Protein backbone atom coordinates (compact mmCIF):
# COMPACT_ATOMS: atom_id res chain seq x y z
CA UNK A 1 0.00 0.00 0.00
CA UNK A 2 2.90 2.26 0.85
CA UNK A 3 4.57 2.06 -2.57
CA UNK A 4 1.26 2.25 -4.47
CA UNK A 5 2.16 5.13 -6.73
CA UNK A 6 5.72 4.00 -7.31
CA UNK A 7 4.49 0.54 -8.44
CA UNK A 8 1.86 2.14 -10.66
CA UNK A 9 4.54 4.19 -12.37
CA UNK A 10 6.80 1.13 -12.87
CA UNK A 11 3.90 -0.85 -14.36
CA UNK A 12 3.19 2.01 -16.78
CA UNK A 13 6.85 2.12 -17.73
CA UNK A 14 6.87 -1.65 -18.40
CA UNK A 15 3.82 -1.22 -20.58
CA UNK A 16 5.49 1.53 -22.61
CA UNK A 17 8.81 -0.41 -22.60
CA UNK A 18 7.12 -3.31 -24.43
CA UNK A 19 6.82 -1.53 -27.74
CA UNK A 20 8.95 1.63 -27.35
CA UNK A 21 12.76 2.15 -27.47
CA UNK A 22 14.41 2.63 -24.06
CA UNK A 23 15.17 6.32 -24.61
CA UNK A 24 11.43 6.84 -24.91
CA UNK A 25 10.88 4.91 -21.66
CA UNK A 26 13.16 7.16 -19.62
CA UNK A 27 11.60 10.22 -21.29
CA UNK A 28 8.10 8.99 -20.42
CA UNK A 29 9.11 8.35 -16.80
CA UNK A 30 10.11 12.01 -16.55
CA UNK A 31 6.91 13.04 -18.31
CA UNK A 32 4.79 10.97 -15.92
CA UNK A 33 6.35 12.64 -12.89
CA UNK A 34 6.04 16.12 -14.47
CA UNK A 35 2.42 15.41 -15.46
CA UNK A 36 1.63 14.18 -11.96
CA UNK A 37 3.21 17.28 -10.44
CA UNK A 38 1.30 19.78 -12.59
CA UNK A 39 -2.01 17.97 -12.15
CA UNK A 40 -1.32 17.73 -8.41
CA UNK A 41 -0.44 21.45 -8.28
CA UNK A 42 -3.67 22.56 -9.96
CA UNK A 43 -5.81 20.04 -8.07
CA UNK A 44 -4.31 21.07 -4.72
CA UNK A 45 -4.81 24.75 -5.48
CA UNK A 46 -8.48 24.31 -6.44
CA UNK A 47 -9.41 22.33 -3.37
CA UNK A 48 -7.33 24.49 -1.05
CA UNK A 49 -9.51 27.48 -1.92
CA UNK A 50 -12.59 25.44 -1.03
CA UNK A 51 -10.99 24.16 2.18
CA UNK A 52 -10.04 27.68 3.20
CA UNK A 53 -13.54 29.05 2.64
CA UNK A 54 -15.09 26.12 4.51
CA UNK A 55 -12.66 26.33 7.45
CA UNK A 56 -12.94 30.11 7.88
CA UNK A 57 -16.70 29.80 7.43
CA UNK A 58 -16.94 27.26 10.20
CA UNK A 59 -14.79 29.48 12.42
CA UNK A 60 -17.32 32.22 11.87
CA UNK A 61 -20.32 29.97 12.60
CA UNK A 62 -21.44 29.86 9.02
CA UNK A 63 -21.45 26.97 6.58
CA UNK A 64 -19.22 28.10 3.74
CA UNK A 65 -19.92 27.27 0.08
CA UNK A 66 -22.37 24.39 -0.28
CA UNK A 67 -24.44 25.35 -3.31
CA UNK A 68 -22.30 24.04 -6.15
CA UNK A 69 -21.98 20.27 -5.86
CA UNK A 70 -22.69 18.09 -2.78
CA UNK A 71 -20.76 19.97 -0.02
CA UNK A 72 -19.62 22.71 -2.38
CA UNK A 73 -17.20 20.25 -3.94
CA UNK A 74 -17.70 21.70 -7.41
CA UNK A 75 -17.19 25.23 -6.16
CA UNK A 76 -13.54 25.33 -7.34
CA UNK A 77 -14.68 24.23 -10.80
CA UNK A 78 -17.22 27.06 -10.82
CA UNK A 79 -14.50 29.50 -9.68
CA UNK A 80 -12.16 28.30 -12.41
CA UNK A 81 -14.81 28.75 -15.10
CA UNK A 82 -15.63 32.21 -13.76
CA UNK A 83 -11.95 33.19 -13.74
CA UNK A 84 -11.45 31.92 -17.29
CA UNK A 85 -14.53 33.57 -18.74
CA UNK A 86 -14.03 36.93 -17.07
CA UNK A 87 -12.80 39.75 -19.27
CA UNK A 88 -9.09 40.33 -18.95
CA UNK A 89 -8.70 44.10 -18.61
CA UNK A 90 -5.29 45.67 -19.14
CA UNK A 91 -5.24 49.29 -17.91
CA UNK A 92 -4.32 51.75 -20.64
CA UNK A 93 -1.24 53.32 -18.99
CA UNK A 94 0.06 49.90 -17.90
CA UNK A 95 3.31 48.49 -19.23
CA UNK A 96 1.95 45.68 -21.43
CA UNK A 97 4.98 43.42 -21.25
CA UNK A 98 5.32 43.52 -17.46
CA UNK A 99 1.57 43.21 -17.04
CA UNK A 100 1.53 40.07 -19.20
CA UNK A 101 4.72 38.49 -17.84
CA UNK A 102 4.05 38.93 -14.12
CA UNK A 103 1.35 36.26 -13.65
CA UNK A 104 3.27 33.79 -15.82
CA UNK A 105 6.51 34.27 -13.94
CA UNK A 106 4.86 33.90 -10.56
CA UNK A 107 3.38 30.47 -11.30
CA UNK A 108 6.57 28.91 -12.75
CA UNK A 109 8.64 28.93 -9.51
CA UNK A 110 5.57 27.91 -7.51
CA UNK A 111 5.29 24.76 -9.66
CA UNK A 112 9.05 24.12 -9.82
CA UNK A 113 9.28 23.86 -6.03
CA UNK A 114 7.09 20.72 -6.20
CA UNK A 115 9.99 18.80 -7.75
CA UNK A 116 11.90 18.82 -4.47
CA UNK A 117 9.05 18.00 -2.05
CA UNK A 118 9.20 14.32 -0.83
CA UNK A 119 5.54 13.23 -1.11
CA UNK A 120 6.31 9.74 0.20
CA UNK A 121 9.05 7.04 0.58
CA UNK A 122 11.16 7.42 -2.61
CA UNK A 123 8.33 9.48 -4.18
CA UNK A 124 10.34 12.65 -4.61
CA UNK A 125 10.15 13.78 -8.22
CA UNK A 126 13.81 14.79 -8.29
CA UNK A 127 15.83 14.07 -5.16
CA UNK A 128 18.57 16.68 -5.69
CA UNK A 129 21.32 16.62 -3.14
CA UNK A 130 20.96 20.45 -3.01
CA UNK A 131 17.19 20.21 -2.56
CA UNK A 132 16.91 22.88 0.16
CA UNK A 133 19.11 25.40 -1.69
CA UNK A 134 16.94 24.82 -4.79
CA UNK A 135 13.83 25.55 -2.72
CA UNK A 136 15.21 28.88 -1.40
CA UNK A 137 16.36 29.89 -4.87
CA UNK A 138 12.90 29.27 -6.33
CA UNK A 139 10.95 30.94 -3.52
CA UNK A 140 13.03 34.12 -3.63
CA UNK A 141 12.20 34.86 -7.30
CA UNK A 142 8.61 35.77 -6.36
CA UNK A 143 9.87 39.02 -4.80
CA UNK A 144 10.91 40.50 -8.10
CA UNK A 145 7.79 39.22 -9.88
CA UNK A 146 5.40 40.81 -7.37
CA UNK A 147 7.17 44.14 -7.69
CA UNK A 148 6.97 43.75 -11.46
CA UNK A 149 3.21 43.18 -11.21
CA UNK A 150 2.78 46.14 -8.87
CA UNK A 151 4.92 48.51 -10.93
CA UNK A 152 3.68 47.27 -14.30
CA UNK A 153 0.03 48.05 -13.68
CA UNK A 154 0.70 51.81 -13.20
CA UNK A 155 -1.72 52.04 -10.27
CA UNK A 156 -0.89 53.91 -7.07
CA UNK A 157 -2.28 51.17 -4.86
CA UNK A 158 -0.48 48.47 -6.84
CA UNK A 159 2.89 50.21 -6.67
CA UNK A 160 2.44 50.71 -2.92
CA UNK A 161 1.66 46.99 -2.65
CA UNK A 162 4.68 46.12 -4.78
CA UNK A 163 7.06 48.16 -2.63
CA UNK A 164 5.66 46.67 0.54
CA UNK A 165 6.13 43.12 -0.78
CA UNK A 166 9.78 43.77 -1.64
CA UNK A 167 10.45 44.99 1.90
CA UNK A 168 8.55 42.05 3.38
CA UNK A 169 10.11 39.29 1.27
CA UNK A 170 13.68 40.44 1.86
CA UNK A 171 13.31 40.91 5.59
CA UNK A 172 11.73 37.44 5.99
CA UNK A 173 14.12 35.59 3.66
CA UNK A 174 17.05 35.98 6.10
CA UNK A 175 15.53 34.49 9.28
CA UNK A 176 13.93 31.75 7.15
CA UNK A 177 17.27 30.57 5.80
CA UNK A 178 19.00 30.88 9.17
CA UNK A 179 16.27 28.87 10.88
CA UNK A 180 17.04 25.89 8.58
CA UNK A 181 20.78 25.84 9.46
CA UNK A 182 20.30 23.73 12.67
CA UNK A 183 18.55 21.03 10.59
CA UNK A 184 21.52 20.91 8.24
CA UNK A 185 23.86 20.76 11.23
CA UNK A 186 22.21 17.60 12.51
CA UNK A 187 21.54 15.92 9.10
CA UNK A 188 24.65 17.00 7.23
CA UNK A 189 22.96 17.05 3.81
CA UNK A 190 20.76 19.43 1.89
CA UNK A 191 18.66 16.77 0.17
CA UNK A 192 15.12 16.62 1.46
CA UNK A 193 15.00 12.82 1.19
CA UNK A 194 17.96 12.41 3.59
CA UNK A 195 16.50 15.00 5.98
CA UNK A 196 13.31 12.94 6.27
CA UNK A 197 15.21 9.68 6.73
CA UNK A 198 17.31 11.30 9.49
CA UNK A 199 14.08 11.94 11.42
CA UNK A 200 13.11 8.28 11.49
CA UNK A 201 13.37 7.91 15.28
CA UNK A 202 13.15 11.52 16.52
CA UNK A 203 11.27 14.30 14.76
CA UNK A 204 13.30 17.49 14.88
CA UNK A 205 10.37 19.47 16.25
CA UNK A 206 10.63 17.54 19.51
CA UNK A 207 14.08 18.97 20.20
CA UNK A 208 14.13 22.49 21.76
CA UNK A 209 16.05 24.08 18.91
CA UNK A 210 13.88 22.18 16.42
CA UNK A 211 10.69 23.61 17.91
CA UNK A 212 11.96 27.19 17.79
CA UNK A 213 13.36 26.68 14.28
CA UNK A 214 10.01 25.25 13.15
CA UNK A 215 8.09 28.24 14.55
CA UNK A 216 10.48 30.73 12.92
CA UNK A 217 10.48 28.85 9.61
CA UNK A 218 6.70 28.61 9.57
CA UNK A 219 6.17 32.29 10.43
CA UNK A 220 8.64 33.37 7.76
CA UNK A 221 6.99 30.99 5.31
CA UNK A 222 3.60 32.59 6.02
CA UNK A 223 5.17 35.98 5.39
CA UNK A 224 6.80 34.70 2.14
CA UNK A 225 3.49 33.79 0.59
CA UNK A 226 1.79 37.01 1.75
CA UNK A 227 -0.76 35.37 3.98
CA UNK A 228 -2.23 36.84 7.13
CA UNK A 229 -1.04 38.28 9.53
CA UNK A 230 1.58 39.46 7.05
CA UNK A 231 -0.70 40.10 4.05
CA UNK A 232 0.41 43.71 3.62
CA UNK A 233 1.14 43.54 -0.14
CA UNK A 234 -2.51 42.74 -0.80
CA UNK A 235 -4.12 44.52 2.17
CA UNK A 236 -7.73 44.93 1.14
CA UNK A 237 -8.60 47.45 3.85
CA UNK A 238 -5.71 49.81 3.07
CA UNK A 239 -4.57 49.51 -0.52
CA UNK A 240 -7.64 47.88 -2.05
CA UNK A 241 -6.06 44.72 -3.46
CA UNK A 242 -2.37 45.57 -3.43
CA UNK A 243 -0.22 44.37 -6.29
CA UNK A 244 -2.96 42.44 -8.12
CA UNK A 245 -5.48 45.32 -8.17
CA UNK A 246 -5.34 45.67 -11.95
CA UNK A 247 -5.38 41.98 -12.80
CA UNK A 248 -8.61 40.26 -13.71
CA UNK A 249 -9.73 37.04 -15.36
CA UNK A 250 -7.07 34.41 -16.06
CA UNK A 251 -4.19 36.60 -14.82
CA UNK A 252 -5.81 36.99 -11.43
CA UNK A 253 -6.43 33.23 -11.37
CA UNK A 254 -2.70 32.65 -11.88
CA UNK A 255 -1.84 34.96 -8.96
CA UNK A 256 -4.42 33.19 -6.84
CA UNK A 257 -3.04 29.78 -7.86
CA UNK A 258 0.55 30.83 -7.14
CA UNK A 259 -0.38 32.06 -3.66
CA UNK A 260 -1.99 28.76 -2.74
CA UNK A 261 0.79 26.64 -4.22
CA UNK A 262 3.35 28.66 -2.26
CA UNK A 263 1.28 28.11 0.87
CA UNK A 264 1.19 24.35 0.15
CA UNK A 265 4.93 24.17 -0.50
CA UNK A 266 5.73 26.12 2.70
CA UNK A 267 3.54 23.77 4.73
CA UNK A 268 5.09 20.74 2.95
CA UNK A 269 8.65 21.99 3.61
CA UNK A 270 7.91 22.69 7.29
CA UNK A 271 6.50 19.16 7.59
CA UNK A 272 9.53 17.72 5.80
CA UNK A 273 12.14 19.63 7.78
CA UNK A 274 10.68 19.45 11.27
CA UNK A 275 7.69 17.09 11.48
CA UNK A 276 9.39 14.11 9.92
CA UNK A 277 7.99 14.33 6.37
CA UNK A 278 6.40 10.95 5.51
CA UNK A 279 7.77 9.18 8.61
CA UNK A 280 4.95 7.69 10.62
CA UNK A 281 3.99 4.36 12.27
CA UNK A 282 1.04 2.58 10.61
CA UNK A 283 -0.36 4.57 7.72
CA UNK A 284 1.32 4.59 4.27
CA UNK A 285 4.03 7.22 3.92
CA UNK A 286 2.25 9.50 1.47
CA UNK A 287 -0.85 9.60 3.75
CA UNK A 288 1.33 10.77 6.66
CA UNK A 289 2.74 13.49 4.46
CA UNK A 290 -0.74 14.71 3.44
CA UNK A 291 -1.95 14.67 7.06
CA UNK A 292 0.95 16.75 8.33
CA UNK A 293 0.87 19.23 5.45
CA UNK A 294 -2.86 19.80 5.64
CA UNK A 295 -2.72 20.27 9.42
CA UNK A 296 -0.15 23.01 8.87
CA UNK A 297 -2.36 24.50 6.15
CA UNK A 298 -5.20 24.47 8.67
CA UNK A 299 -2.99 26.52 10.99
CA UNK A 300 -2.38 29.02 8.17
CA UNK A 301 -6.13 29.35 7.59
CA UNK A 302 -6.61 29.63 11.34
CA UNK A 303 -4.23 32.62 11.31
CA UNK A 304 -6.19 34.17 8.45
CA UNK A 305 -9.46 33.74 10.32
CA UNK A 306 -8.28 35.40 13.48
CA UNK A 307 -5.34 37.72 13.39
CA UNK A 308 -5.34 41.37 12.31
CA UNK A 309 -2.58 42.61 10.02
CA UNK A 310 0.77 44.06 10.99
CA UNK A 311 1.85 47.48 9.83
CA UNK A 312 4.77 47.71 7.39
CA UNK A 313 7.42 48.94 9.82
CA UNK A 314 6.25 46.60 12.60
CA UNK A 315 6.41 43.67 10.17
CA UNK A 316 10.01 44.51 9.26
CA UNK A 317 10.91 45.25 12.86
CA UNK A 318 9.59 41.83 13.90
CA UNK A 319 11.78 40.12 11.28
CA UNK A 320 15.03 42.00 11.91
CA UNK A 321 14.79 42.63 15.64
CA UNK A 322 13.04 39.48 16.80
CA UNK A 323 13.13 36.49 14.47
CA UNK A 324 16.67 37.02 13.17
CA UNK A 325 18.41 37.15 16.60
CA UNK A 326 16.26 34.24 17.75
CA UNK A 327 17.36 32.18 14.70
CA UNK A 328 21.02 32.97 15.41
CA UNK A 329 20.71 31.94 19.06
CA UNK A 330 18.90 28.86 17.84
CA UNK A 331 21.94 27.82 15.79
CA UNK A 332 24.10 28.22 18.93
CA UNK A 333 21.64 26.13 20.97
CA UNK A 334 21.48 23.44 18.25
CA UNK A 335 25.27 23.26 18.14
CA UNK A 336 25.38 22.93 21.92
CA UNK A 337 22.69 20.25 21.90
CA UNK A 338 24.42 18.17 19.20
CA UNK A 339 27.89 18.62 20.75
CA UNK A 340 26.91 17.72 24.31
CA UNK A 341 24.20 15.27 23.34
CA UNK A 342 21.88 13.62 25.88
CA UNK A 343 19.83 15.40 28.58
CA UNK A 344 22.61 17.91 29.42
CA UNK A 345 22.55 19.26 25.86
CA UNK A 346 18.74 19.26 25.83
CA UNK A 347 18.52 21.26 29.08
CA UNK A 348 21.23 23.78 28.17
CA UNK A 349 19.70 24.41 24.72
CA UNK A 350 16.28 24.89 26.31
CA UNK A 351 17.61 27.37 28.90
CA UNK A 352 19.48 29.42 26.31
CA UNK A 353 16.48 29.59 24.01
CA UNK A 354 13.93 30.51 26.68
CA UNK A 355 16.33 33.09 28.12
CA UNK A 356 16.89 34.69 24.75
CA UNK A 357 13.13 34.67 24.02
CA UNK A 358 12.42 36.55 27.25
CA UNK A 359 15.35 38.91 26.63
CA UNK A 360 14.19 39.68 23.08
CA UNK A 361 10.64 40.38 24.14
CA UNK A 362 12.06 42.80 26.75
CA UNK A 363 14.24 44.48 24.10
CA UNK A 364 11.30 44.98 21.73
CA UNK A 365 9.36 47.13 24.22
CA UNK A 366 7.16 48.69 21.50
CA UNK A 367 5.70 45.31 20.50
CA UNK A 368 4.61 44.31 23.97
CA UNK A 369 1.12 45.62 24.89
CA UNK A 370 1.10 48.42 27.46
CA UNK A 371 -0.88 47.92 30.63
CA UNK A 372 -3.75 50.45 30.66
CA UNK A 373 -6.04 51.34 33.54
CA UNK A 374 -9.44 52.94 32.93
CA UNK A 375 -11.28 55.25 35.34
CA UNK A 376 -14.97 54.49 35.81
CA UNK A 377 -16.18 57.94 36.76
CA UNK A 378 -19.80 58.65 37.58
Amino acid at each position, binding site marked *: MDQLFVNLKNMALHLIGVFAPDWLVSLSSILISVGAMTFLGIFIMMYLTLMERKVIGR*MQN*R*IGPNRVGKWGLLQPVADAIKMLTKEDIVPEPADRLLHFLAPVMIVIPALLIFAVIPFGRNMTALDLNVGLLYFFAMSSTTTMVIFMAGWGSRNKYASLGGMRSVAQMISYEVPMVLSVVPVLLSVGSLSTGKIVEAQADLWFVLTPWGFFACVIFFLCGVAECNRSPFDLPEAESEIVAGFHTEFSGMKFALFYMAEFMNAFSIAALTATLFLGGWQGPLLPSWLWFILKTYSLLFVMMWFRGTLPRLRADQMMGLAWKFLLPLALVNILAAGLHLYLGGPAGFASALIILLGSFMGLSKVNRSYVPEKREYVLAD
Partner: protein
Amino acid sequence: MLFGMGILRGLGVTLKNFFASYYKKPEEGGLFTVEYPEKRLPVKERFRNFPFLVYDTTPENMRCVACDICAKECPPKCIYIVRDNDEAGRPLKKPAIFDIDFTVCMNCGICEEVCPFDAIYMDHEFEIADANRLDALLYNLPDLLKPNDYFQKIRPNDAAQVDARRLEAEEKKKAAVAAVKTQAAAKDIKPE
Protein backbone atom coordinates in the same frame (compact mmCIF):
# COMPACT_ATOMS: atom_id res chain seq x y z
CA MET B 1 2.88 37.29 30.72
CA LEU B 2 4.57 35.58 27.74
CA PHE B 3 4.88 37.64 24.56
CA GLY B 4 2.60 35.61 22.31
CA MET B 5 -0.08 34.64 24.87
CA GLY B 6 -2.74 37.16 23.72
CA ILE B 7 -2.59 35.85 20.18
CA LEU B 8 -2.76 32.22 21.30
CA ARG B 9 -5.81 32.89 23.48
CA GLY B 10 -7.46 34.66 20.54
CA LEU B 11 -6.73 31.66 18.32
CA GLY B 12 -8.28 29.49 21.02
CA VAL B 13 -11.53 31.43 20.72
CA THR B 14 -11.77 30.88 16.96
CA LEU B 15 -10.90 27.20 17.34
CA LYS B 16 -13.63 26.82 19.98
CA ASN B 17 -16.09 28.40 17.55
CA PHE B 18 -14.80 26.14 14.77
CA PHE B 19 -15.69 22.97 16.69
CA ALA B 20 -18.78 24.52 18.31
CA SER B 21 -20.30 25.06 14.87
CA TYR B 22 -20.35 21.26 14.44
CA TYR B 23 -22.02 20.05 17.59
CA LYS B 24 -23.62 23.02 19.40
CA LYS B 25 -27.18 24.28 18.90
CA PRO B 26 -27.59 27.72 17.28
CA GLU B 27 -28.42 29.52 20.56
CA GLU B 28 -25.26 28.67 22.47
CA GLY B 29 -22.82 29.56 19.72
CA GLY B 30 -23.50 26.87 17.13
CA LEU B 31 -24.22 27.37 13.45
CA PHE B 32 -26.75 30.19 13.36
CA THR B 33 -26.93 30.94 9.64
CA VAL B 34 -30.17 29.88 7.95
CA GLU B 35 -29.93 28.70 4.35
CA TYR B 36 -32.45 31.13 2.93
CA PRO B 37 -34.39 29.71 0.04
CA GLU B 38 -34.84 26.29 1.64
CA LYS B 39 -35.22 27.24 5.32
CA ARG B 40 -36.67 30.62 6.29
CA LEU B 41 -36.73 32.65 9.50
CA PRO B 42 -40.32 33.29 10.70
CA VAL B 43 -41.32 36.92 10.19
CA LYS B 44 -42.41 38.70 13.37
CA GLU B 45 -46.05 39.68 13.60
CA ARG B 46 -45.50 43.43 13.59
CA PHE B 47 -43.11 43.18 10.64
CA ARG B 48 -44.16 45.77 8.06
CA ASN B 49 -43.41 45.69 4.40
CA PHE B 50 -45.43 47.38 1.65
CA PRO B 51 -49.12 48.20 2.36
CA PHE B 52 -52.19 46.37 1.08
CA LEU B 53 -55.92 47.18 1.06
CA VAL B 54 -58.33 45.04 3.06
CA TYR B 55 -61.75 43.96 1.81
CA ASP B 56 -64.24 42.04 3.95
CA THR B 57 -65.89 39.33 1.86
CA THR B 58 -65.73 40.30 -1.81
CA PRO B 59 -63.39 42.81 -3.44
CA GLU B 60 -66.44 45.01 -4.13
CA ASN B 61 -67.11 46.03 -0.54
CA MET B 62 -63.55 47.11 0.30
CA ARG B 63 -63.09 49.24 3.37
CA CYS B 64 -61.34 52.10 1.60
CA VAL B 65 -63.59 55.10 0.96
CA ALA B 66 -61.01 57.14 -1.01
CA CYS B 67 -60.81 59.84 1.70
CA ASP B 68 -57.22 60.60 0.59
CA ILE B 69 -55.94 61.01 4.19
CA CYS B 70 -53.19 58.42 3.69
CA ALA B 71 -52.07 60.06 0.46
CA LYS B 72 -51.77 63.42 2.27
CA GLU B 73 -49.94 61.94 5.29
CA CYS B 74 -47.54 59.72 3.32
CA PRO B 75 -44.03 61.23 3.79
CA PRO B 76 -42.62 60.30 0.37
CA LYS B 77 -46.03 60.86 -1.32
CA CYS B 78 -46.19 57.46 -3.03
CA ILE B 79 -50.01 56.93 -2.91
CA TYR B 80 -52.26 58.21 -5.75
CA ILE B 81 -56.05 58.01 -5.35
CA VAL B 82 -58.82 59.00 -7.78
CA ARG B 83 -62.37 58.81 -6.43
CA ASP B 84 -64.84 56.74 -8.40
CA ASN B 85 -68.18 58.23 -9.43
CA ASP B 86 -71.27 56.46 -10.69
CA GLU B 87 -72.78 56.82 -14.18
CA ALA B 88 -74.67 59.99 -13.15
CA GLY B 89 -71.36 61.61 -12.20
CA ARG B 90 -72.02 61.68 -8.46
CA PRO B 91 -68.86 60.75 -6.40
CA LEU B 92 -68.96 57.30 -4.77
CA LYS B 93 -67.37 56.13 -1.55
CA LYS B 94 -64.92 53.95 -3.54
CA PRO B 95 -61.57 54.67 -5.25
CA ALA B 96 -61.44 54.18 -9.03
CA ILE B 97 -57.65 54.29 -9.08
CA PHE B 98 -55.51 53.46 -6.03
CA ASP B 99 -51.80 53.24 -7.00
CA ILE B 100 -48.90 52.75 -4.62
CA ASP B 101 -45.42 53.06 -6.12
CA PHE B 102 -43.39 50.47 -4.23
CA THR B 103 -40.12 51.93 -5.50
CA VAL B 104 -40.89 55.14 -3.57
CA CYS B 105 -42.65 53.67 -0.52
CA MET B 106 -40.28 53.26 2.48
CA ASN B 107 -42.70 51.03 4.46
CA CYS B 108 -42.81 53.43 7.43
CA GLY B 109 -46.35 52.40 8.38
CA ILE B 110 -47.78 55.93 8.75
CA CYS B 111 -50.62 55.18 6.31
CA GLU B 112 -51.70 52.28 8.53
CA GLU B 113 -51.80 54.58 11.58
CA VAL B 114 -53.72 57.45 10.08
CA CYS B 115 -56.37 55.49 8.15
CA PRO B 116 -59.69 56.12 9.96
CA PHE B 117 -61.46 53.23 8.18
CA ASP B 118 -58.95 50.37 8.94
CA ALA B 119 -58.59 49.98 5.19
CA ILE B 120 -54.82 49.88 4.66
CA TYR B 121 -52.38 47.62 6.55
CA MET B 122 -48.71 46.67 6.21
CA ASP B 123 -48.06 43.35 4.53
CA HIS B 124 -45.55 40.61 5.35
CA GLU B 125 -44.85 39.78 1.71
CA PHE B 126 -41.30 40.90 0.91
CA GLU B 127 -40.28 38.79 -2.05
CA ILE B 128 -41.64 41.13 -4.72
CA ALA B 129 -38.44 41.84 -6.63
CA ASP B 130 -38.98 42.22 -10.36
CA ALA B 131 -36.91 42.90 -13.45
CA ASN B 132 -38.91 45.87 -14.70
CA ARG B 133 -38.70 48.75 -12.24
CA LEU B 134 -41.38 51.10 -13.58
CA ASP B 135 -44.52 49.07 -14.21
CA ALA B 136 -44.01 45.90 -12.16
CA LEU B 137 -43.48 47.74 -8.87
CA LEU B 138 -46.34 50.21 -9.44
CA TYR B 139 -49.16 48.30 -7.70
CA ASN B 140 -52.68 49.40 -8.61
CA LEU B 141 -56.04 48.53 -7.06
CA PRO B 142 -56.47 44.85 -8.07
CA ASP B 143 -52.93 43.93 -6.92
CA LEU B 144 -53.36 45.71 -3.57
CA LEU B 145 -56.69 44.19 -2.57
CA LYS B 146 -56.42 41.27 -0.12
CA PRO B 147 -59.14 39.57 1.94
CA ASN B 148 -59.60 40.17 5.65
CA ASP B 149 -58.83 36.56 6.56
CA TYR B 150 -55.40 36.97 4.91
CA PHE B 151 -54.94 39.89 7.28
CA GLN B 152 -56.02 37.62 10.18
CA LYS B 153 -53.57 34.95 9.02
CA ILE B 154 -50.50 37.17 8.94
CA ARG B 155 -51.24 39.40 11.94
CA PRO B 156 -53.56 37.49 14.30
CA ASN B 157 -53.41 39.81 17.36
CA ASP B 158 -53.69 43.11 15.48
CA ALA B 159 -56.46 41.73 13.27
CA ALA B 160 -58.35 40.50 16.33
CA GLN B 161 -58.18 43.94 17.92
CA VAL B 162 -59.29 45.63 14.71
CA ASP B 163 -62.22 43.29 14.23
CA ALA B 164 -63.28 43.66 17.87
CA ARG B 165 -63.22 47.44 17.48
CA ARG B 166 -65.17 47.30 14.24
CA LEU B 167 -67.73 44.93 15.73
CA GLU B 168 -68.25 47.19 18.70
CA ALA B 169 -68.55 50.24 16.40
CA GLU B 170 -71.08 48.19 14.41
CA GLU B 171 -73.18 47.52 17.52
CA LYS B 172 -72.99 51.13 18.60
CA LYS B 173 -74.15 52.26 15.15
CA LYS B 174 -77.00 49.70 15.10
CA ALA B 175 -78.01 50.76 18.60
CA ALA B 176 -77.89 54.43 17.56
CA VAL B 177 -79.98 53.71 14.42
CA ALA B 178 -82.45 51.71 16.49
CA ALA B 179 -82.63 54.57 19.00
CA VAL B 180 -83.29 57.08 16.22
CA LYS B 181 -85.96 54.78 14.74
CA THR B 182 -87.78 54.40 18.07
CA GLN B 183 -87.52 58.15 18.62
CA ALA B 184 -88.96 58.84 15.14
CA ALA B 185 -91.70 56.29 15.81
CA ALA B 186 -92.48 57.99 19.12
CA LYS B 187 -92.73 61.34 17.33
CA ASP B 188 -95.17 59.97 14.72
CA ILE B 189 -97.55 58.75 17.41
CA LYS B 190 -97.55 62.01 19.37
CA PRO B 191 -98.66 64.50 16.60
CA GLU B 192 -101.85 62.61 15.54
